[in-house]
């Protein structure tokens, strides 16, 4: 198809693809795939095509890829490989854990600022007879442990709170939550999808019963997530079929994706400290340039993730900023997109008490390992340029 495309419209195509710098600053949405990961996945796709369930050597080779990856990822979480189940995404891992552990009559404590894959699942479970407490955050997006304690009742089966908020980067007090859950004998799940690979994540410190992670936030492929399920805990199967993934999630394994996840996990967890320093430097230079250029802004939440900031620019709408930055080659996130691709007001920003006019001017910027300090400076300068142009236009049209 692509060759056809080039031959049919090549003249215009060459024109449109004028060499433009591309600076990706939306790593919280998904990271570029590391070369090592892509190379390994390519090798698997071409050479290790067997079905892991087959008993011949082709199957054996594929099974080895899956199990090697399970070990690689398990090590990074401090769990045993048998406690790790691969899924089709982080969202699926969240669904698997919530839907697999709760039944009508149970009580779930979660929050109003969870990722949609927890929040919407909780709302669905409520319809089936699961009691759900949706706790409200403080103005930074954090859930109070006291509030969790106050909501515990005899039927409380599960507490599900994210490790860091995916829009704000704010950290929850997982240690205190784990103590509370342990004392009260309640299961604890943490959605660590946004934190994993960026902050230390260890299933025993603090001790959690369930954890969700995803490969595409750690320079791995899209379409592969994983659920940690502590040994001895039983979940209801999520997909019935051939019994893959410990009977929880049937279906022929995404061998290349899982293989890529393993490599990505290994790379990120060994290099995390260095990466953290690198990202902090980029963020400092970005902030400093904003100040130097006298750009009005304020930061929302308390981001614990290096290189990650939720930021309001009162002079420009997020949509306008995002589109204009994209046209200049910079990718950032302007709230959550709905299915048709327009921007929807953010539930998280509303929950932390932001009014809609402010939320409409709020974006998320997340640097990654491929960014440089110069990218941070260039992004701030680009923002300045856009704000200048737009506000000048407004003056003209109002005057």
């Amino acid at each position, binding site marked *: 198809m692509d060759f056809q495309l080039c031959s049919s419209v090549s003249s215009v195509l060459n024109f449109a693809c004028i060499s433009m710098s591309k600076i990706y600053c939306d790593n919280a949405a998904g990271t570029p795939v590391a070369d090592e990961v892509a190379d390994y996945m390519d090798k698997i796709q071409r050479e290790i095509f067997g079905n892991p369930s087959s008993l011949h050597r082709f199957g054996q080779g594929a099974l080895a890829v899956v199990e090697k990856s399970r070990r690689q990822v398990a090590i990074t979480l401090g769990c045993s490989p048998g406690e790790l189940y691969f899924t089709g995404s982080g969202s699926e891992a969240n669904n698997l854990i919530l839907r697999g552990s709760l039944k009508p009559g149970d009580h779930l404590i979660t929050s109003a600022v969870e990722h949609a894959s927890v929040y919407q699942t909780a709302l669905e479970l409520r319809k089936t007879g699961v009691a759900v407490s949706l706790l409200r955050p403080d103005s930074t997006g954090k859930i109070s442990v006291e509030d969790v304690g106050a909501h515990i009742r005899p039927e409380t089966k599960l507490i599900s709170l994210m490790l860091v908020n995916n829009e704000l980067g704010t950290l929850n007090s997982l240690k205190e939550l784990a103590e509370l859950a342990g004392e009260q004998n309640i299961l604890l799940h943490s959605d660590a999808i946004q934190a994993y690979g960026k902050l230390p994540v260890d299933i025993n410190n603090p001790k959690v019963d369930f954890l969700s992670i995803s490969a595409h936030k750690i320079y791995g492929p899209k379409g592969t997530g994983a659920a940690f399920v502590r040994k001895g805990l039983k979940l209801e199967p999520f997909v019935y079929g051939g019994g893959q993934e410990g009977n929880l999630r049937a279906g022929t394994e995404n061998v290349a994706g899982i293989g890529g996840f393993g490599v990505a996990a290994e790379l990120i967890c060994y290099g995390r400290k260095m990466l953290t320093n690198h990202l902090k430097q980029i963020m400092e230079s970005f902030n400093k340039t904003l100040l130097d250029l006298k750009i009005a802004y304020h930061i929302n939440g308390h981001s614990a993730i290096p290189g990650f900031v939720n930021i309001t620019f009162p002079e420009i709408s997020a949509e306008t900023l995002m*589109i204009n930055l994209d046209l200049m080659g910079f990718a950032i996130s302007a709230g959550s997109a709905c299915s048709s691709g327009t921007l929807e007001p953010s539930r998280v920003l509303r929950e932390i008490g932001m009014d809609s006019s402010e939320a409409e001017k709020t974006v998320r910027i997340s640097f990654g390992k491929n960014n440089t300090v110069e990218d941070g400076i260039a992004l701030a300068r680009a923002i300045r340029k856009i704000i200048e142009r737009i506000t000048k236009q407004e003056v003209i049209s109002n005057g």
Partner: protein
Amino acid sequence: MAEKVMVAMSGGVDSSVALLRVMEMGYNPIGVTMKLWKYDDVGGNLVNDTNCCSVDTVKGAKLVCDRLGVPHYTIDFTDIFRKQVVNDFADEYLRGRTPNPCVRCNSFVKWAAFFEQARVVGAGRIATGHYARIEAANGSFYLKKGVDPLKDQAYVLWGIPRRTLADTLLPLGDLTKREVREIARKNNLETAETPESMEICFVADDNYKRFLNDFRPQEVSKITRGKILENGEVVGEHPGYINYTIGQRKGLGLSRPEPRYVKKIDPASNTITVGKKDELESAGCYVSQVNWLIDEPAYPLNVLAQIRYKSRPVEAFVSQTENRLRVEFSKPKLSVTPGQSIVFFKQDIVLGGGIIESQ
């Protein structure tokens, strides 16, 4: 760097080819799909994969843009669309008139908010896939009919602000629909075979009565049965005046050797007046909300006037009354319908237009 042009991408074949042509003209295009309506608000989304603003049409637009290496965004215009187009659509039907929402969308959304959006993305011009032409002569820009008589859309563009003509590209005006499809196929555009959309985009099931009922339930529920009159005498009963439009024959429940047509709708007295075909003819009409795409002419003025999207223009004589125009047709016209647009032409140049008020 080439000048930026913001292209309105509906996800259909026309706007896709418009984009391609904008590129061929040497511009640097940006594709924007306007999100105009949320179907879940007022239902009726029975055929969601062929309608504007659905996820599938947005994806079609995105695919085409991506194939051509063009950035694409979907921008929300639902507030202004509701305010300027959908509210007026409902108001007009409730007043017993027959609105033309596409005209209002062009006048008050596309060549207004969308046109303004171009500047926000740094584009000096917009382009759309309408079948009409804009030509420059003597330092002015003129709107002309498209060359394809079957597809010509000049009629729905009479209300756009004249100043926007200079910064508007209509790259399909010199093509026929058949040629547009051929270009799309030749270039493997994903939207090459998208079906023609004829219905009102926000009334996805093409059932405007159902729509009004869902959109304005309180007001519609107050509309009661009423009398059907002919020559001042009661000849029958109607189930509610919003079910009728001028010239309508069906749904009157009258059995006469010679058919009767709706001649007049009067919400105030809740009556429908019917008549024989020849009684539907009017010698002229009053016109308001006039917009000129030329320097305002001196009256009286001889024009060709078109009173419906698919009707043939007829010679007419335009004069000015207090705050309206009076149009006299050279021959009486059938079913001159309040709420519809009347467009004035000289040959194939659109001079201007307005809204028909009364006969």
